[in-house]
């Protein structure tokens, strides 16, 4: 196997001196498709922030064994000001910023790229609208376009399916499948059905992290992992993740 893109070793992290994650280890390899599940407040978002380098761990380290990968990020939508006066196109273009070019004005090809993504994510006609006029699902798609515009090697998605409407859900998943051909994906999701049909491996995060090297989990294993997930909300138990017991 090739070397990992990112290697998280013995990381303990949290806020104001209180740890949320304890002694977490995780390697992410090129073209991985990792589903991250766990209860609310279990530390999924915290793990993604450590991975992205925007939260410094108390101890342990995050290393990039190869060249530092370009990482795309779709934050949890509830953490972002939906009423900020900025247009869809400008939001998407902000994904083009890099450490060396953030102060430069944008090139024509960047704008063409943004236009292309606006079409791909079904936002045609909304490019020059302020994000405040978008629905939750449309806003999330704009943030997805922002995350992938710079062709990352690793894509971190924090609950990208909270608001996405039925009509786009299928398109979102086929888009992710297509993206996975060129980039690793770290997908946090509440929706265990999503996880089942898409991901290759699963991580359970609830203070600690349990890595599961396949996309099939039994309820017993979840119990052993101490990874309770709310299944009631999802109707019939998705077959591919949770094997029916009995």
């Amino acid at each position, binding site marked *: 196997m090739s070397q990992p893109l990112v290697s998280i070793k013995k990381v303990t992290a949290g806020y*104001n001196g209180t740890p949320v994650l304890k002694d977490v280890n995780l390697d992410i390899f090129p073209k991985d498709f990792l589903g991250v599940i766990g209860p609310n407040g279990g530390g999924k978002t915290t793990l993604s*922030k450590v991975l*992205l*380098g*925007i939260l410094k761990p108390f101890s342990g380290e995050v290393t990039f064994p190869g060249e530092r990968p370009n*990482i795309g*990020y779709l*934050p949890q939508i509830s*953490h*972002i*000001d939906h009423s*900020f*006066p*900025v*247009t869809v196109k*400008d*939001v998407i273009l*902000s*994904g083009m*910023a*890099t*450490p*060396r070019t*953030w*102060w430069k*004005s*944008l090139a024509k090809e960047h704008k063409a790229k943004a236009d292309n993504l606006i079409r791909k994510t079904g936002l045609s006609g909304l490019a020059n*609208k*302020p994000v*405040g*006029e978008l629905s939750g699902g449309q806003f999330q798609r704009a943030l997805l376009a*922002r995350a992938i515009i*710079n062709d990352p090697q690793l894509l971190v998605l924090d609950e990208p399916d909270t608001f996405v409407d039925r009509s786009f859900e299928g398109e979102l998943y086929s888009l992710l499948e297509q993206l996975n051909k060129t980039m690793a994906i770290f997908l946090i999701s509440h929706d265990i059905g999503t996880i089942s049909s898409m991901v290759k491996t699963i991580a359970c995060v609830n203070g600690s992290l349990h890595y599961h090297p396949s996309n099939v989990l039994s309820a017993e294993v979840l119990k052993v992992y101490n990874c309770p997930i709310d299944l009631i909300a999802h109707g019939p138990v998705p077959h591919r993740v949770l094997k029916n017991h009995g």
Partner: protein
Amino acid sequence: MQNILSLFEYQFFQNALMAAILTSALAALVGTYIVSRKVVFISGGITHASFGGIGIAYFFGLNPFLGAVAFAIASSLGIEWISTHGKIREDSAIAILWSLGMALGIIFVFLTPGYTPNLMSFLFGSILSVGMADIIVLAVVLLFTSLFFVIFSRPIVYTAFDPEFARTRGLPVTLIRNSMAILVAIAIVLSIRVMGIILVLSIFTIPQNTALLFSGKFSGIIKGSVLFGISGSILGLITASIFDIPGSAAIIFVLTLQFLISKGVAIILRKRKKTRKSSATGEEKNSIHEPHIKE
């Protein structure tokens, strides 16, 4: 009418007019950042904290403006630090800073022997006593701030909208946010001269909210705020001179009137757009006669 025209012949009125225009332009830029980031309350804290600096500077015989700037910058950076490191309740911290600044100011002004400055002019501004030196300082700061906003327009918007994402893209978020915090502090202190501590936030928020009725874009709000802010302060100043009332209060009155009228205009425009759209497609009829089918 002749009275109004003759006003413009007086030096003091020309100065006041210049100061009002420059202050409005500066507040248009900085206020757009304040309103967009929803940090109006923080800005109130900075404003009032600066009075502590004014009092202390008076007591020690220093320039009160410099005292105010020092206090404002320190509190602005302090709050920025608290909001990112968050170990205390941010809103309570601001309220403490707010009242402590005022308390320090009043203590030191009272302790200053001999001449005591006119408190009313600090609290409500004194636009008619603005001098050439004030105008030059305002012009220089406005020029610098405009350049900063033009050159760094994208990073300013990116770091205000989503600082964590900006950090993942390698932007120097802390540097940009701190620079903005300093600019906010300086702009507020300079505007106190014209508007006074208690009234100054109006020119950083009312024109912006009027502009927000017509634009959902950061740069559009700046342009709208420049337009509404400058025209409002000129009209306010003239009104103040005619009725012989304080300039700052008259400016706020005009700015609010602008907002209310614009709100009415915006509502009418939106209604018209809707009817035009639906009558063009014949939807209006349908929506009246055929109930929408729900799934």
